[in-house]
């Protein structure tokens, strides 16, 4: 019997708190990403070294994506969007290490990421428009749309969570099933497919986060112009 993908394995307990496998893997990923970034940015130079060139390439690609998707100055969004992308990519690809299950295959990790995106939408929206201005966007086409817009803010975060969870978890699940049916080396093509899906899902998660933040922030220029005229 294959164990439920909705339950996480408890590794050890710290006091009354059980530490599950995804939490431990997340800590490991955080440590690796932080250490790599610290090492790469330790001695920045005008003429980049090899590591700095790789880092500049990543940051430049993230900036270009934000510029293209949100059509806004990318600087304020690069730290969050870039970290989200790198973390989800590393988490999805952590299944390459033997014995490690990607933490994004458990819904708690995805829920945490989705909640981060939810609150950052609120933060960027309120920062760009002010509290009243952001609340006014809920009545945007007409006042009738308020309940729909409220429901939409919740459901799109939920769909963000379930999309990442479903894709990564189904990959892990399928590899597990094929491994139990066919044996060693057979699931390798599926694992390769899983790498592709992991990269695409990391990209889509961050692009959708950008789109949501952009819609909370970016409409400002259009409506702001109209308000300026009417005043």
């Amino acid at each position, binding site marked *: 019997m294959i164990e439920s993908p*909705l*339950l996480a394995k408890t590794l050890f307990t710290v006091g009354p708190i059980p530490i599950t496998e995804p939490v431990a893997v997340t800590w490991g990923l955080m440590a690796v990403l932080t250490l790599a970034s610290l090492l790469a940015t330790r001695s920045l130079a005008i003429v980049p070294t090899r590591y700095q060139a790789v880092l500049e390439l990543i940051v430049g690609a993230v900036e270009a994506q934000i510029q*293209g998707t949100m059509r806004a100055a990318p600087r304020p969004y690069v730290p969050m969007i870039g970290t989200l992308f790198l973390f989800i990519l590393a988490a999805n690809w952590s299944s390459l290490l033997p014995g490690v299950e990607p933490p994004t295959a458990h819904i708690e990790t995805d829920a945490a990421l989705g909640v981060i995106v939810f609150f950052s939408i609120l933060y960027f929206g309120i920062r760009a428009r002010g509290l009243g201005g952001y609340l006014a966007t809920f009545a945007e086409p007409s006042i009738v749309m308020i309940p729909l817009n409220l429901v939409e803010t919740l459901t799109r975060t939920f769909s963000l969570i379930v999309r990442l969870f479903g894709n990564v978890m189904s990959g892990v699940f399928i590899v597990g099933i094929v491994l139990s049916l066919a044996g060693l080396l057979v699931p390798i093509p599926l694992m390769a497919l899983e790498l592709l899906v992991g990269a695409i899902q990391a990209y*889509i998660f961050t692009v959708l986060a950008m789109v949501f933040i952009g819609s909370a922030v970016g409409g400002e220029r259009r409506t702001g112009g109209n308000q300026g005229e009417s005043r």
Partner: protein
Amino acid sequence: MNWTEIVSIFAAAIAVSFGAIGPALAEGRAVAAAMDAIARQPEAAGTISRTLFVGLAMIETMAIYCLVIALLVLFANPFIR
């Protein structure tokens, strides 16, 4: 194995199989439309494919919902136990 479990397994199979039909057709249409657009306007391929990926992810979520419902029915069924 009692009737609830048997019905749950069939419900999961039906949820996934029928839930895959709609998104499959929709993704086919979306990709066909994007190919058409790229063939007409190759210089807009970057924007089109980026929008296509996001749209495909949106469509695919419907199939993933069905998968999650099937897993809930199989592994976290409130009527068993």
